[in-house]
């Protein structure tokens, strides 16, 4: 077999090895801990430096497709918020976010673990349509933009909302999203217009195009996909699904690296043959 053939591995073989590499560390963890990056540390610090009673606006900007990556990050961030007695206003700028909310809260357990009460310590406004229109509306006049919460209850009747009217009453805007327009939207609306401390998190594939917002200081903190989630879990000292899957990421990335090398060997071997 010529070296050029190594680039033509059958798809089923490549994917079977991926599945095996994912299963092995789950059954027998290797225990490789993530190294905390500066951007995750900044995200953590932005929330950690808040005082009890300060307000965090948290946006679930992802649906079921993003849940495996951003779900663990949401759980870690909300656990951090509740452990610091912060008031959390949760909303969804992604339609499926309203479906994801109960999945997240089922793991966070704010009432049981932190003694938080719905309406007094946290509220969920549900899905608010319009992306940037929704963001601008919520930051401009929250009570008009979302007169009722996701259960249909008027937010005027919720004690914590009496003092949260607009961007002036919000200390940190934090979001996790799978959509570029949501990631950029919060930068434009929360940071650019109101100069709010804004922290963003997203899928790793979005990082190259969105990291400049963090580099230039528009975003105070940044969570880079599942890696960022694992780092955040490590920072709050509560290992979750992201840390469990860190080994998988290491092994599968190693496999990708091998495939890239094989692909290059095949490419140069085929080119060498053509030249000769």
């Amino acid at each position, binding site marked *: 077999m010529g070296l050029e053939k190594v680039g033509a591995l059958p798809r089923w073989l490549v994917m079977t090895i991926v599945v095996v590499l994912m299963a092995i560390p789950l059954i027998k963890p290797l225990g490789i801990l993530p190294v905390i990056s500066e951007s995750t540390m900044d995200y953590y610090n932005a929330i950690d430096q808040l005082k009890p009673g300060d307000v965090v606006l948290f946006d679930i900007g992802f649906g079921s497709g993003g849940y495996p990556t951003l779900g663990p990050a949401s759980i870690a961030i909300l656990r951090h918020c509740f452990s610091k007695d912060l008031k959390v206003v949760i909303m969804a700028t992604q339609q499926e976010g309203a479906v994801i909310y109960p999945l997240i809260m089922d793991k966070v357990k704010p009432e049981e673990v932190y003694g938080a009460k719905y309406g007094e310590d946290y509220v969920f406004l549900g899905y608010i349509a319009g992306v940037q229109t929704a963001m601008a509306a919520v930051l401009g006049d929250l009570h008009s933009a979302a007169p009722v919460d996701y259960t249909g209850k008027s937010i005027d009747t919720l004690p914590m909302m009496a003092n949260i009217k607009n961007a002036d009453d919000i200390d940190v805007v934090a979001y996790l999203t799978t959509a570029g327009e949501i990631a950029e939207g919060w930068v434009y609306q929360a940071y650019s217009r109101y100069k709010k401390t804004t922290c963003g998190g997203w*899928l790793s594939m979005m990082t190259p195009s969105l990291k400049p917002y963090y580099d230039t200081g528009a975003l105070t903190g940044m969570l880079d996909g599942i890696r960022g989630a694992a780092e955040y879990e490590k920072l709050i000292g509560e290992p979750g699904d992201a840390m469990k899957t860190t080994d998988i990421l290491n092994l599968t990335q190693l496999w990708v690296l091998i495939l890239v090398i094989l692909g290059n060997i095949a490419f140069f071997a085929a080119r060498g043959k053509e030249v000769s």
Partner: protein
Amino acid sequence: MIATDISIWIAAFFTIAATSYVFKDNIIFKFAEYTFIGVAAGHALVMGVENVKKYGWSHLKGGEIIYIIPFIVGVLLYFRYHPTYYWLYRYGIAFLVGQGIGLSMRGMVHTDFIKQIAATAGPLVAETALGTLNTIIIFILTITSLTHFIFTVKQVHIGTMSWLPKIGRYGMLLAFGAAFGNTVMTRFSQYQGRMLFLLRDWLGIVAP
């Protein structure tokens, strides 16, 4: 222990059905695909109606007549399908596009232009040696990448200066490679969540 909850079994079935595509396109995958599209479309429709009720109809019912305007603009969009009055839909689109641009431009100019240019044009020497190296790379690749897009001056690409856009091209290729690597990592991280679900929540092999 293996799950006894029927919803977990359904989720496990659809996870495996969707994954089966990597081996070969098959009827089980198609079933999963069409089910997902159907559910997503149904969910989007219900959420759409809910939004109209929540943010439009409830206000109108409460006597806020001004809310008739978004309803009219919304209805205008459907004129797209009318053979004679189809042009009316343009007013709806114009309103949406104008509002969207107006809203985003306000913040975009500051963060996408001014801040990015200011950051790129900053001092070359940073606090650390690695930081300095980084700013030098940014400086060189920004300038050389820009030269790649100068199409009005032919000499830039074929003359003695052709090494400039060439460096820019390599810089862009590196960026595309990084983006591709991140995309692969994202796809794996999304699937590893499903693996965890299959092995822990469904089969009970992995400890909770």
